[in-house]
Protein backbone atom coordinates (compact mmCIF):
# COMPACT_ATOMS: atom_id res chain seq x y z
CA UNK A 1 0.00 0.00 0.00
CA UNK A 2 2.79 2.37 0.97
CA UNK A 3 4.69 1.55 -2.20
CA UNK A 4 1.61 2.21 -4.31
CA UNK A 5 1.11 5.66 -2.84
CA UNK A 6 4.79 6.53 -3.26
CA UNK A 7 4.54 5.57 -6.93
CA UNK A 8 1.47 7.71 -7.32
CA UNK A 9 3.21 10.70 -5.76
CA UNK A 10 6.21 10.20 -7.99
CA UNK A 11 4.04 10.13 -11.06
CA UNK A 12 2.14 13.21 -9.96
CA UNK A 13 5.34 15.15 -9.26
CA UNK A 14 6.78 14.25 -12.65
CA UNK A 15 3.50 15.19 -14.32
CA UNK A 16 3.48 18.58 -12.62
CA UNK A 17 7.05 19.32 -13.70
CA UNK A 18 6.24 18.23 -17.24
CA UNK A 19 3.13 20.36 -17.14
CA UNK A 20 5.14 23.46 -16.24
CA UNK A 21 6.72 23.41 -19.72
CA UNK A 22 3.24 23.77 -21.18
CA UNK A 23 2.38 26.33 -18.50
CA UNK A 24 5.42 28.41 -19.49
CA UNK A 25 4.19 28.64 -23.08
CA UNK A 26 0.68 29.65 -21.99
CA UNK A 27 2.06 32.17 -19.51
CA UNK A 28 4.33 33.60 -22.22
CA UNK A 29 1.46 34.11 -24.65
CA UNK A 30 -0.83 35.60 -22.00
CA UNK A 31 1.67 37.95 -20.43
CA UNK A 32 2.97 39.24 -23.76
CA UNK A 33 -0.55 39.72 -25.07
CA UNK A 34 -1.46 41.61 -21.89
CA UNK A 35 1.44 44.03 -22.17
CA UNK A 36 1.07 44.43 -25.94
CA UNK A 37 -2.63 45.25 -25.59
CA UNK A 38 -2.29 49.07 -25.28
CA UNK A 39 -0.38 49.24 -28.57
CA UNK A 40 -2.73 46.79 -30.29
CA UNK A 41 -5.73 48.88 -29.16
CA UNK A 42 -4.20 52.17 -30.20
CA UNK A 43 -2.81 51.27 -33.61
CA UNK A 44 -4.70 48.14 -34.65
CA UNK A 45 -3.68 46.85 -38.05
CA UNK A 46 -2.05 50.18 -38.92
CA UNK A 47 0.86 48.95 -36.82
CA UNK A 48 1.78 46.51 -39.56
CA UNK A 49 1.81 48.91 -42.50
CA UNK A 50 2.84 52.28 -41.06
CA UNK A 51 6.48 53.18 -41.50
CA UNK A 52 6.68 55.99 -38.94
CA UNK A 53 8.56 55.12 -35.77
CA UNK A 54 8.51 58.20 -33.60
CA UNK A 55 8.87 57.60 -29.85
CA UNK A 56 8.58 61.33 -29.11
CA UNK A 57 5.19 61.76 -30.75
CA UNK A 58 4.26 58.21 -29.79
CA UNK A 59 3.44 57.11 -33.31
CA UNK A 60 4.57 53.55 -33.87
CA UNK A 61 4.52 51.57 -37.09
CA UNK A 62 6.51 48.38 -37.49
CA UNK A 63 6.77 48.24 -41.28
CA UNK A 64 10.50 49.13 -41.57
CA UNK A 65 11.34 46.41 -39.05
CA UNK A 66 9.14 43.80 -40.69
CA UNK A 67 10.66 44.73 -44.03
CA UNK A 68 14.19 44.48 -42.62
CA UNK A 69 13.54 41.12 -41.00
CA UNK A 70 11.89 39.63 -44.07
CA UNK A 71 14.44 40.91 -46.59
CA UNK A 72 17.52 40.07 -44.52
CA UNK A 73 16.26 36.54 -43.83
CA UNK A 74 15.22 35.97 -47.44
CA UNK A 75 18.59 37.15 -48.72
CA UNK A 76 20.35 34.98 -46.17
CA UNK A 77 18.35 31.96 -47.34
CA UNK A 78 19.13 32.78 -50.96
CA UNK A 79 22.85 32.72 -50.19
CA UNK A 80 22.83 29.87 -47.69
CA UNK A 81 20.64 27.40 -49.58
CA UNK A 82 22.91 26.54 -52.54
CA UNK A 83 25.99 26.43 -50.32
CA UNK A 84 24.32 24.25 -47.68
CA UNK A 85 22.98 21.87 -50.29
CA UNK A 86 26.43 21.68 -51.82
CA UNK A 87 27.96 20.83 -48.46
CA UNK A 88 25.27 18.28 -47.70
CA UNK A 89 25.71 16.62 -51.10
CA UNK A 90 29.47 16.62 -50.70
CA UNK A 91 29.36 15.19 -47.18
CA UNK A 92 26.70 12.57 -47.89
CA UNK A 93 27.64 11.49 -51.42
CA UNK A 94 31.01 12.63 -52.66
CA UNK A 95 33.54 13.12 -49.88
CA UNK A 96 36.05 10.37 -49.17
CA UNK A 97 35.14 8.56 -45.95
CA UNK A 98 38.08 9.86 -43.95
CA UNK A 99 37.02 13.47 -44.66
CA UNK A 100 33.33 13.17 -43.78
CA UNK A 101 33.48 13.23 -40.00
CA UNK A 102 36.12 15.98 -39.58
CA UNK A 103 34.40 18.18 -42.16
CA UNK A 104 30.96 17.85 -40.65
CA UNK A 105 32.47 18.50 -37.22
CA UNK A 106 34.05 21.72 -38.52
CA UNK A 107 30.80 22.89 -40.06
CA UNK A 108 28.92 22.17 -36.87
CA UNK A 109 31.51 24.25 -35.04
CA UNK A 110 30.00 27.23 -36.85
CA UNK A 111 26.77 26.58 -34.97
CA UNK A 112 28.56 26.58 -31.62
CA UNK A 113 30.02 30.08 -32.00
CA UNK A 114 27.98 32.52 -29.85
CA UNK A 115 26.15 35.11 -31.93
CA UNK A 116 27.82 37.99 -30.13
CA UNK A 117 31.17 36.71 -31.42
CA UNK A 118 29.74 36.68 -34.95
CA UNK A 119 28.73 40.29 -34.36
CA UNK A 120 32.19 41.23 -33.14
CA UNK A 121 33.73 39.65 -36.23
CA UNK A 122 31.12 41.41 -38.35
CA UNK A 123 31.96 44.84 -36.95
CA UNK A 124 35.73 44.55 -37.14
CA UNK A 125 36.28 42.32 -40.14
CA UNK A 126 33.23 41.84 -42.36
CA UNK A 127 31.95 45.43 -42.45
CA UNK A 128 35.34 47.03 -43.29
CA UNK A 129 35.98 44.27 -45.84
CA UNK A 130 32.64 44.91 -47.53
CA UNK A 131 33.16 48.68 -47.45
CA UNK A 132 36.62 48.63 -48.94
CA UNK A 133 36.51 45.67 -51.32
CA UNK A 134 33.13 44.13 -52.07
CA UNK A 135 30.88 47.17 -52.27
CA UNK A 136 33.14 49.21 -54.62
CA UNK A 137 33.43 46.10 -56.79
CA UNK A 138 29.67 45.53 -56.91
CA UNK A 139 29.08 49.22 -57.56
CA UNK A 140 31.55 49.32 -60.44
CA UNK A 141 30.19 46.31 -62.29
CA UNK A 142 26.55 46.11 -61.19
CA UNK A 143 25.98 49.73 -60.17
CA UNK A 144 23.26 50.12 -62.80
CA UNK A 145 21.02 47.97 -60.58
CA UNK A 146 19.27 49.90 -57.82
CA UNK A 147 20.34 47.10 -55.45
CA UNK A 148 23.96 48.17 -55.50
CA UNK A 149 23.78 51.93 -55.22
CA UNK A 150 24.41 54.45 -52.49
CA UNK A 151 27.16 55.15 -50.01
CA UNK A 152 29.53 52.40 -48.88
CA UNK A 153 28.95 52.13 -45.14
CA UNK A 154 29.97 48.53 -44.73
CA UNK A 155 27.26 47.99 -42.14
CA UNK A 156 23.83 47.49 -43.66
CA UNK A 157 21.50 44.98 -45.21
CA UNK A 158 24.22 43.17 -47.17
CA UNK A 159 26.47 42.50 -44.18
CA UNK A 160 23.49 41.39 -42.06
CA UNK A 161 22.38 38.97 -44.75
CA UNK A 162 25.89 37.55 -45.14
CA UNK A 163 26.31 37.00 -41.41
CA UNK A 164 22.86 35.43 -41.17
CA UNK A 165 23.62 33.09 -44.04
CA UNK A 166 26.83 31.92 -42.33
CA UNK A 167 24.84 31.30 -39.16
CA UNK A 168 22.11 29.22 -40.80
CA UNK A 169 24.36 27.14 -43.07
CA UNK A 170 25.12 24.58 -40.32
CA UNK A 171 21.39 24.17 -39.56
CA UNK A 172 20.35 23.60 -43.17
CA UNK A 173 23.35 21.52 -44.18
CA UNK A 174 23.33 19.14 -41.22
CA UNK A 175 19.60 18.38 -41.51
CA UNK A 176 19.80 18.01 -45.30
CA UNK A 177 22.76 15.70 -44.93
CA UNK A 178 20.82 13.50 -42.56
CA UNK A 179 17.88 13.47 -44.95
CA UNK A 180 20.21 12.48 -47.81
CA UNK A 181 21.63 9.66 -45.75
CA UNK A 182 18.13 8.20 -45.32
CA UNK A 183 17.67 7.86 -49.09
CA UNK A 184 17.77 4.11 -49.82
CA UNK A 185 20.86 2.95 -51.74
CA UNK A 186 18.60 1.08 -54.15
CA UNK A 187 17.54 4.47 -55.56
CA UNK A 188 21.14 5.42 -56.29
CA UNK A 189 22.00 2.00 -57.67
CA UNK A 190 19.02 2.12 -59.98
CA UNK A 191 20.08 5.47 -61.40
CA UNK A 192 23.70 4.36 -61.77
CA UNK A 193 22.61 1.12 -63.47
CA UNK A 194 20.73 3.16 -66.05
CA UNK A 195 23.99 4.89 -66.89
CA UNK A 196 23.52 8.15 -65.02
CA UNK A 197 26.59 10.14 -64.09
CA UNK A 198 27.31 10.85 -60.46
CA UNK A 199 25.63 14.25 -60.59
CA UNK A 200 22.60 12.86 -62.41
CA UNK A 201 22.29 10.19 -59.73
CA UNK A 202 22.33 12.84 -57.04
CA UNK A 203 19.86 15.06 -58.86
CA UNK A 204 17.39 12.34 -59.80
CA UNK A 205 17.65 9.81 -56.99
CA UNK A 206 18.81 11.79 -53.97
CA UNK A 207 17.58 15.38 -54.33
CA UNK A 208 14.24 14.31 -55.76
CA UNK A 209 13.66 11.83 -52.98
CA UNK A 210 14.74 14.18 -50.21
CA UNK A 211 12.81 17.23 -51.43
CA UNK A 212 10.35 17.63 -48.58
CA UNK A 213 12.99 16.97 -45.93
CA UNK A 214 15.22 19.64 -47.43
CA UNK A 215 12.27 22.03 -47.49
CA UNK A 216 11.83 21.35 -43.77
CA UNK A 217 15.51 22.11 -43.17
CA UNK A 218 15.21 25.36 -45.11
CA UNK A 219 12.17 26.45 -43.11
CA UNK A 220 13.96 25.63 -39.86
CA UNK A 221 16.90 27.74 -41.04
CA UNK A 222 14.49 30.55 -41.88
CA UNK A 223 13.07 30.38 -38.37
CA UNK A 224 16.54 30.77 -36.96
CA UNK A 225 17.34 33.69 -39.26
CA UNK A 226 14.14 35.58 -38.37
CA UNK A 227 14.82 35.47 -34.64
CA UNK A 228 18.57 36.06 -34.71
CA UNK A 229 19.33 39.19 -32.74
CA UNK A 230 22.81 40.08 -31.64
CA UNK A 231 24.91 39.54 -34.75
CA UNK A 232 22.34 41.33 -36.90
CA UNK A 233 21.99 44.23 -34.47
CA UNK A 234 25.74 44.76 -34.56
CA UNK A 235 26.08 44.93 -38.35
CA UNK A 236 22.78 46.06 -39.89
CA UNK A 237 23.24 49.75 -39.12
CA UNK A 238 19.99 50.20 -37.16
CA UNK A 239 18.16 52.80 -39.22
CA UNK A 240 14.36 52.41 -39.53
CA UNK A 241 14.15 53.15 -43.25
CA UNK A 242 12.99 51.14 -46.21
CA UNK A 243 15.56 51.37 -48.96
CA UNK A 244 15.89 49.44 -52.19
CA UNK A 245 19.66 49.31 -51.90
CA UNK A 246 21.49 46.46 -50.17
CA UNK A 247 24.20 48.89 -49.11
CA UNK A 248 21.81 50.98 -47.01
CA UNK A 249 21.49 50.50 -43.26
CA UNK A 250 18.25 48.85 -42.13
CA UNK A 251 16.62 47.57 -38.96
CA UNK A 252 15.02 44.28 -37.97
CA UNK A 253 12.28 43.40 -35.50
CA UNK A 254 14.68 41.60 -33.18
CA UNK A 255 17.27 44.36 -33.25
CA UNK A 256 14.82 47.18 -32.53
CA UNK A 257 13.76 45.26 -29.43
CA UNK A 258 17.39 44.71 -28.45
CA UNK A 259 18.33 48.36 -28.92
CA UNK A 260 15.34 50.24 -27.60
CA UNK A 261 13.71 48.02 -25.01
CA UNK A 262 15.63 49.20 -21.98
CA UNK A 263 15.28 52.81 -23.11
CA UNK A 264 11.53 52.69 -23.65
CA UNK A 265 10.33 55.41 -21.29
CA UNK A 266 6.58 55.44 -21.82
CA UNK A 267 4.14 52.58 -21.45
CA UNK A 268 2.94 52.87 -25.04
CA UNK A 269 6.51 52.72 -26.38
CA UNK A 270 7.21 49.59 -24.34
CA UNK A 271 3.90 48.11 -25.42
CA UNK A 272 4.72 48.70 -29.10
CA UNK A 273 8.07 46.93 -28.67
CA UNK A 274 6.38 44.01 -26.92
CA UNK A 275 3.88 43.82 -29.77
CA UNK A 276 6.78 43.49 -32.21
CA UNK A 277 8.10 40.65 -30.08
CA UNK A 278 4.66 39.07 -30.07
CA UNK A 279 4.48 39.18 -33.88
CA UNK A 280 7.95 37.67 -34.07
CA UNK A 281 6.83 34.89 -31.71
CA UNK A 282 3.83 33.98 -33.84
CA UNK A 283 5.73 34.05 -37.12
CA UNK A 284 8.49 31.77 -35.79
CA UNK A 285 5.86 29.53 -34.18
CA UNK A 286 4.09 28.96 -37.50
CA UNK A 287 7.39 28.45 -39.30
CA UNK A 288 8.61 25.90 -36.77
CA UNK A 289 5.37 23.96 -36.86
CA UNK A 290 5.53 23.82 -40.66
CA UNK A 291 9.15 22.66 -40.61
CA UNK A 292 8.49 19.97 -38.02
CA UNK A 293 5.49 18.72 -39.94
CA UNK A 294 7.60 18.35 -43.07
CA UNK A 295 10.52 16.63 -41.35
CA UNK A 296 8.11 14.45 -39.41
CA UNK A 297 6.43 13.38 -42.64
CA UNK A 298 9.79 12.32 -44.06
CA UNK A 299 10.70 10.27 -40.99
CA UNK A 300 7.23 8.71 -40.95
CA UNK A 301 7.69 7.73 -44.59
CA UNK A 302 10.96 6.02 -43.71
CA UNK A 303 9.48 4.25 -40.70
CA UNK A 304 6.63 2.94 -42.84
CA UNK A 305 9.08 1.18 -45.14
Amino acid at each position, binding site marked *: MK*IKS*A*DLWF*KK*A*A*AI*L*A*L*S*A*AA*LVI*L*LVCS*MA*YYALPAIRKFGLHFLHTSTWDPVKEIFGALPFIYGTVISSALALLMAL*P*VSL*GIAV*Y*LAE*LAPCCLREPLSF*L*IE*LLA*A*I*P*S*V*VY*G*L*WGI*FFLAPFLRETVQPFLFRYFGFLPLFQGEFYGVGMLSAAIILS*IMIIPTI*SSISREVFLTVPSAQREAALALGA*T*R*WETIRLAVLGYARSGVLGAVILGL*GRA*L*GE*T*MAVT*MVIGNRPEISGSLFAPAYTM*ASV*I*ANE*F*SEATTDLYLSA*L*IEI*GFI*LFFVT*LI*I*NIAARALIWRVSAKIKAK
Partner: protein
Amino acid sequence: MNIYIKRKIINKLMCGAAFFSALLTLAPLISIFGYVISKGITSVNFDFFTHLPMPVGEHGGGMSNAIVGTLILIGLSCLWAIPLGVFGGVYLAEFGNNKFAAAVRFSADVLNGIPSIVIGIFAYTVFVLPMKSFSAISGAFALGIIMVPTIMRATEEMLRMVPFALREAALALGVSQSRMIVSIVLKTALPGILTGILLAIARIAGETAPLLFTAFGNRFWHQGLNQPIAALPLQIFNYAISPYDDWHRQAWAGALVLILMVFLISLLTRFVIKPKYRRKEMIWKQK
Protein backbone atom coordinates in the same frame (compact mmCIF):
# COMPACT_ATOMS: atom_id res chain seq x y z
CA MET B 1 29.06 11.81 -78.77
CA ASN B 2 28.43 15.42 -78.01
CA ILE B 3 25.79 14.70 -75.37
CA TYR B 4 28.15 12.42 -73.47
CA ILE B 5 30.81 15.05 -73.20
CA LYS B 6 28.22 17.59 -72.14
CA ARG B 7 26.92 15.30 -69.42
CA LYS B 8 30.43 14.57 -68.22
CA ILE B 9 31.26 18.26 -68.06
CA ILE B 10 28.08 19.02 -66.11
CA ASN B 11 28.91 16.15 -63.77
CA LYS B 12 32.39 17.52 -63.11
CA LEU B 13 31.08 21.06 -62.68
CA MET B 14 28.40 20.13 -60.15
CA CYS B 15 30.66 17.86 -58.11
CA GLY B 16 33.24 20.62 -58.14
CA ALA B 17 30.60 23.10 -56.98
CA ALA B 18 29.70 20.83 -54.06
CA PHE B 19 33.35 20.59 -53.04
CA PHE B 20 33.77 24.33 -53.48
CA SER B 21 30.79 25.11 -51.24
CA ALA B 22 32.36 23.03 -48.47
CA LEU B 23 35.55 25.08 -48.85
CA LEU B 24 33.54 28.30 -48.98
CA THR B 25 31.97 27.57 -45.61
CA LEU B 26 35.31 26.87 -44.04
CA ALA B 27 36.50 30.36 -45.02
CA PRO B 28 34.39 32.31 -42.47
CA LEU B 29 35.10 29.64 -39.86
CA ILE B 30 38.84 30.06 -40.30
CA SER B 31 38.50 33.83 -40.47
CA ILE B 32 36.45 34.02 -37.25
CA PHE B 33 38.76 31.70 -35.35
CA GLY B 34 41.83 33.42 -36.73
CA TYR B 35 40.56 36.81 -35.61
CA VAL B 36 39.36 35.70 -32.19
CA ILE B 37 42.57 33.82 -31.44
CA SER B 38 45.06 36.33 -32.84
CA LYS B 39 43.33 39.40 -31.40
CA GLY B 40 42.25 37.61 -28.24
CA ILE B 41 45.65 36.22 -27.27
CA THR B 42 47.37 39.58 -27.58
CA SER B 43 44.61 41.20 -25.51
CA VAL B 44 44.08 38.72 -22.76
CA ASN B 45 46.25 39.17 -19.69
CA PHE B 46 46.25 38.50 -15.99
CA ASP B 47 44.33 41.69 -15.20
CA PHE B 48 41.53 40.53 -17.46
CA PHE B 49 40.67 37.72 -15.08
CA THR B 50 41.28 39.52 -11.80
CA HIS B 51 40.21 43.16 -12.23
CA LEU B 52 36.92 44.99 -12.46
CA PRO B 53 36.21 47.18 -15.49
CA MET B 54 37.83 50.62 -15.27
CA PRO B 55 35.77 53.81 -15.52
CA VAL B 56 35.21 55.12 -19.06
CA GLY B 57 38.37 56.56 -20.56
CA GLU B 58 40.87 54.83 -18.30
CA HIS B 59 43.04 52.05 -19.68
CA GLY B 60 43.32 48.58 -18.24
CA GLY B 61 40.94 46.73 -16.03
CA GLY B 62 39.33 43.40 -16.73
CA MET B 63 36.14 41.45 -16.82
CA SER B 64 36.41 39.37 -13.66
CA ASN B 65 32.91 40.43 -12.62
CA ALA B 66 31.45 39.37 -15.97
CA ILE B 67 33.10 35.94 -15.86
CA VAL B 68 31.82 35.36 -12.33
CA GLY B 69 28.44 36.79 -13.32
CA THR B 70 28.10 34.38 -16.22
CA LEU B 71 28.96 31.47 -13.92
CA ILE B 72 26.37 32.65 -11.37
CA LEU B 73 23.72 33.01 -14.07
CA ILE B 74 24.47 29.53 -15.44
CA GLY B 75 24.34 28.05 -11.93
CA LEU B 76 21.04 29.75 -11.11
CA SER B 77 19.39 28.67 -14.34
CA CYS B 78 20.60 25.07 -13.85
CA LEU B 79 19.07 25.14 -10.40
CA TRP B 80 15.52 25.29 -11.74
CA ALA B 81 15.87 24.12 -15.34
CA ILE B 82 17.59 20.77 -14.65
CA PRO B 83 14.99 19.31 -12.24
CA LEU B 84 12.18 20.56 -14.45
CA GLY B 85 13.77 19.24 -17.62
CA VAL B 86 14.88 15.88 -16.26
CA PHE B 87 11.63 15.05 -14.44
CA GLY B 88 9.58 16.34 -17.35
CA GLY B 89 11.59 14.00 -19.57
CA VAL B 90 11.02 11.13 -17.11
CA TYR B 91 7.29 11.73 -17.32
CA LEU B 92 7.33 11.82 -21.12
CA ALA B 93 9.36 8.62 -21.40
CA GLU B 94 7.77 6.55 -18.62
CA PHE B 95 4.16 7.72 -18.48
CA GLY B 96 3.95 9.62 -21.74
CA ASN B 97 1.58 7.72 -23.97
CA ASN B 98 -1.33 10.12 -23.68
CA LYS B 99 -2.61 13.38 -25.10
CA PHE B 100 -1.33 15.34 -22.13
CA ALA B 101 2.23 14.23 -22.88
CA ALA B 102 1.77 15.11 -26.54
CA ALA B 103 0.83 18.63 -25.45
CA VAL B 104 3.95 18.82 -23.29
CA ARG B 105 6.13 17.62 -26.18
CA PHE B 106 4.58 20.21 -28.43
CA SER B 107 5.20 22.96 -25.85
CA ALA B 108 8.82 21.89 -25.53
CA ASP B 109 9.21 22.19 -29.30
CA VAL B 110 7.53 25.59 -29.25
CA LEU B 111 9.84 26.77 -26.45
CA ASN B 112 12.81 25.49 -28.42
CA GLY B 113 11.86 27.55 -31.47
CA ILE B 114 11.12 30.87 -29.77
CA PRO B 115 13.72 33.53 -30.61
CA SER B 116 15.81 34.18 -27.52
CA ILE B 117 15.01 37.90 -27.58
CA VAL B 118 11.30 37.08 -27.16
CA ILE B 119 12.17 34.95 -24.15
CA GLY B 120 13.94 38.03 -22.80
CA ILE B 121 10.74 40.06 -23.16
CA PHE B 122 8.79 37.32 -21.40
CA ALA B 123 11.23 37.27 -18.47
CA TYR B 124 11.03 41.06 -18.37
CA THR B 125 7.25 41.06 -18.07
CA VAL B 126 7.23 38.30 -15.45
CA PHE B 127 10.14 39.37 -13.23
CA VAL B 128 11.49 42.82 -14.02
CA LEU B 129 8.19 44.72 -14.17
CA PRO B 130 6.80 43.42 -10.85
CA MET B 131 10.18 43.71 -9.08
CA LYS B 132 10.82 47.11 -10.66
CA SER B 133 14.49 46.24 -11.12
CA PHE B 134 16.71 44.30 -13.51
CA SER B 135 17.98 41.26 -11.67
CA ALA B 136 20.10 38.12 -11.76
CA ILE B 137 16.94 36.09 -11.09
CA SER B 138 15.17 37.33 -14.20
CA GLY B 139 18.26 36.58 -16.29
CA ALA B 140 18.45 33.06 -14.90
CA PHE B 141 14.74 32.60 -15.58
CA ALA B 142 15.22 33.57 -19.24
CA LEU B 143 18.27 31.32 -19.67
CA GLY B 144 16.49 28.44 -17.93
CA ILE B 145 13.60 28.60 -20.39
CA ILE B 146 16.11 28.03 -23.18
CA MET B 147 17.57 25.04 -21.31
CA VAL B 148 14.33 23.26 -20.37
CA PRO B 149 13.26 21.92 -23.81
CA THR B 150 16.77 20.72 -24.67
CA ILE B 151 17.14 18.82 -21.39
CA MET B 152 13.60 17.48 -21.51
CA ARG B 153 13.86 16.00 -24.98
CA ALA B 154 17.39 14.65 -24.35
CA THR B 155 16.21 12.93 -21.16
CA GLU B 156 13.20 11.46 -22.90
CA GLU B 157 15.27 10.07 -25.76
CA MET B 158 17.92 8.64 -23.44
CA LEU B 159 15.34 6.94 -21.19
CA ARG B 160 13.66 5.38 -24.22
CA MET B 161 17.00 3.81 -25.15
CA VAL B 162 17.19 1.96 -21.82
CA PRO B 163 16.20 -1.67 -22.60
CA PHE B 164 12.84 -2.82 -21.30
CA ALA B 165 14.38 -6.00 -19.90
CA LEU B 166 16.14 -3.88 -17.26
CA ARG B 167 12.85 -2.36 -16.12
CA GLU B 168 11.15 -5.74 -16.06
CA ALA B 169 14.02 -7.31 -14.12
CA ALA B 170 13.77 -4.60 -11.46
CA LEU B 171 10.00 -4.85 -11.21
CA ALA B 172 10.19 -8.64 -11.02
CA LEU B 173 12.43 -8.31 -7.96
CA GLY B 174 9.63 -6.44 -6.27
CA VAL B 175 11.04 -2.93 -6.55
CA SER B 176 8.47 -0.16 -6.71
CA GLN B 177 8.07 1.70 -9.99
CA SER B 178 9.41 5.01 -8.68
CA ARG B 179 12.43 3.25 -7.17
CA MET B 180 12.99 1.40 -10.45
CA ILE B 181 12.97 4.66 -12.43
CA VAL B 182 15.33 6.47 -10.07
CA SER B 183 17.92 3.80 -9.38
CA ILE B 184 17.79 1.70 -12.56
CA VAL B 185 16.51 3.70 -15.52
CA LEU B 186 17.88 7.13 -14.63
CA LYS B 187 21.19 5.65 -13.54
CA THR B 188 21.62 3.76 -16.81
CA ALA B 189 20.75 6.81 -18.88
CA LEU B 190 22.82 9.20 -16.75
CA PRO B 191 25.71 9.80 -19.21
CA GLY B 192 23.24 10.66 -21.97
CA ILE B 193 21.24 12.98 -19.73
CA LEU B 194 24.43 14.72 -18.56
CA THR B 195 25.39 15.23 -22.19
CA GLY B 196 22.03 16.87 -22.83
CA ILE B 197 22.50 19.13 -19.81
CA LEU B 198 26.01 20.13 -20.85
CA LEU B 199 24.83 20.89 -24.38
CA ALA B 200 22.10 23.10 -22.93
CA ILE B 201 24.69 24.89 -20.77
CA ALA B 202 26.98 25.39 -23.76
CA ARG B 203 24.05 26.90 -25.60
CA ILE B 204 23.12 29.43 -22.89
CA ALA B 205 26.70 30.37 -21.98
CA GLY B 206 26.96 32.52 -25.10
CA GLU B 207 23.40 33.89 -25.11
CA THR B 208 23.22 37.67 -25.09
CA ALA B 209 19.80 38.70 -26.34
CA PRO B 210 17.70 37.39 -23.41
CA LEU B 211 20.03 39.08 -20.91
CA LEU B 212 19.86 42.58 -22.41
CA PHE B 213 16.91 43.67 -20.31
CA THR B 214 16.87 41.03 -17.60
CA ALA B 215 20.38 40.64 -16.16
CA PHE B 216 21.19 44.00 -17.80
CA GLY B 217 24.90 44.03 -16.93
CA ASN B 218 26.81 45.66 -14.13
CA ARG B 219 30.24 47.19 -13.83
CA PHE B 220 30.77 45.98 -10.26
CA TRP B 221 30.82 42.73 -8.33
CA HIS B 222 27.45 41.09 -8.00
CA GLN B 223 25.36 42.65 -5.28
CA GLY B 224 22.64 40.12 -4.67
CA LEU B 225 20.31 38.17 -6.85
CA ASN B 226 17.71 40.92 -7.05
CA GLN B 227 20.22 43.33 -8.54
CA PRO B 228 21.54 43.68 -12.12
CA ILE B 229 24.43 41.33 -12.79
CA ALA B 230 27.27 41.36 -15.31
CA ALA B 231 27.57 38.64 -17.95
CA LEU B 232 30.42 37.95 -20.34
CA PRO B 233 28.41 38.07 -23.61
CA LEU B 234 26.71 41.31 -22.53
CA GLN B 235 30.04 42.90 -21.70
CA ILE B 236 31.46 41.85 -25.08
CA PHE B 237 28.47 43.40 -26.81
CA ASN B 238 28.70 46.68 -24.89
CA TYR B 239 32.44 46.95 -25.45
CA ALA B 240 32.21 46.04 -29.13
CA ILE B 241 29.77 48.84 -29.95
CA SER B 242 31.68 51.39 -27.85
CA PRO B 243 34.04 53.89 -29.51
CA TYR B 244 37.11 53.10 -27.35
CA ASP B 245 40.05 51.08 -28.69
CA ASP B 246 40.92 49.69 -25.29
CA TRP B 247 37.37 48.37 -24.91
CA HIS B 248 37.54 46.77 -28.36
CA ARG B 249 40.70 45.00 -27.24
CA GLN B 250 38.90 43.70 -24.16
CA ALA B 251 35.92 42.63 -26.27
CA TRP B 252 38.24 40.37 -28.28
CA ALA B 253 39.75 39.00 -25.09
CA GLY B 254 36.23 38.35 -23.82
CA ALA B 255 35.28 36.62 -27.06
CA LEU B 256 38.30 34.33 -26.76
CA VAL B 257 37.43 33.44 -23.17
CA LEU B 258 33.76 32.90 -24.08
CA ILE B 259 34.57 30.64 -27.03
CA LEU B 260 37.03 28.65 -24.92
CA MET B 261 34.35 28.30 -22.24
CA VAL B 262 31.75 27.05 -24.73
CA PHE B 263 34.18 24.59 -26.32
CA LEU B 264 35.41 23.36 -22.97
CA ILE B 265 31.83 22.50 -22.03
CA SER B 266 31.30 20.76 -25.39
CA LEU B 267 34.55 18.87 -24.90
CA LEU B 268 33.36 17.82 -21.47
CA THR B 269 30.37 16.12 -23.11
CA ARG B 270 32.76 13.80 -24.93
CA PHE B 271 34.38 12.79 -21.65
CA VAL B 272 31.00 12.20 -20.07
CA ILE B 273 29.95 9.88 -22.86
CA LYS B 274 33.18 7.97 -22.76
CA PRO B 275 32.67 5.86 -19.61
CA LYS B 276 29.55 4.40 -21.19
CA TYR B 277 31.52 3.19 -24.16
CA ARG B 278 34.25 1.93 -21.90
CA ARG B 279 31.77 -0.14 -19.99
CA LYS B 280 30.44 -1.53 -23.24
CA GLU B 281 33.93 -2.54 -24.27
CA MET B 282 34.43 -4.30 -20.94
CA ILE B 283 31.22 -6.22 -21.41
CA TRP B 284 32.39 -7.26 -24.84
CA LYS B 285 35.70 -8.44 -23.43
CA GLN B 286 33.97 -10.48 -20.74
CA LYS B 287 31.99 -12.24 -23.41
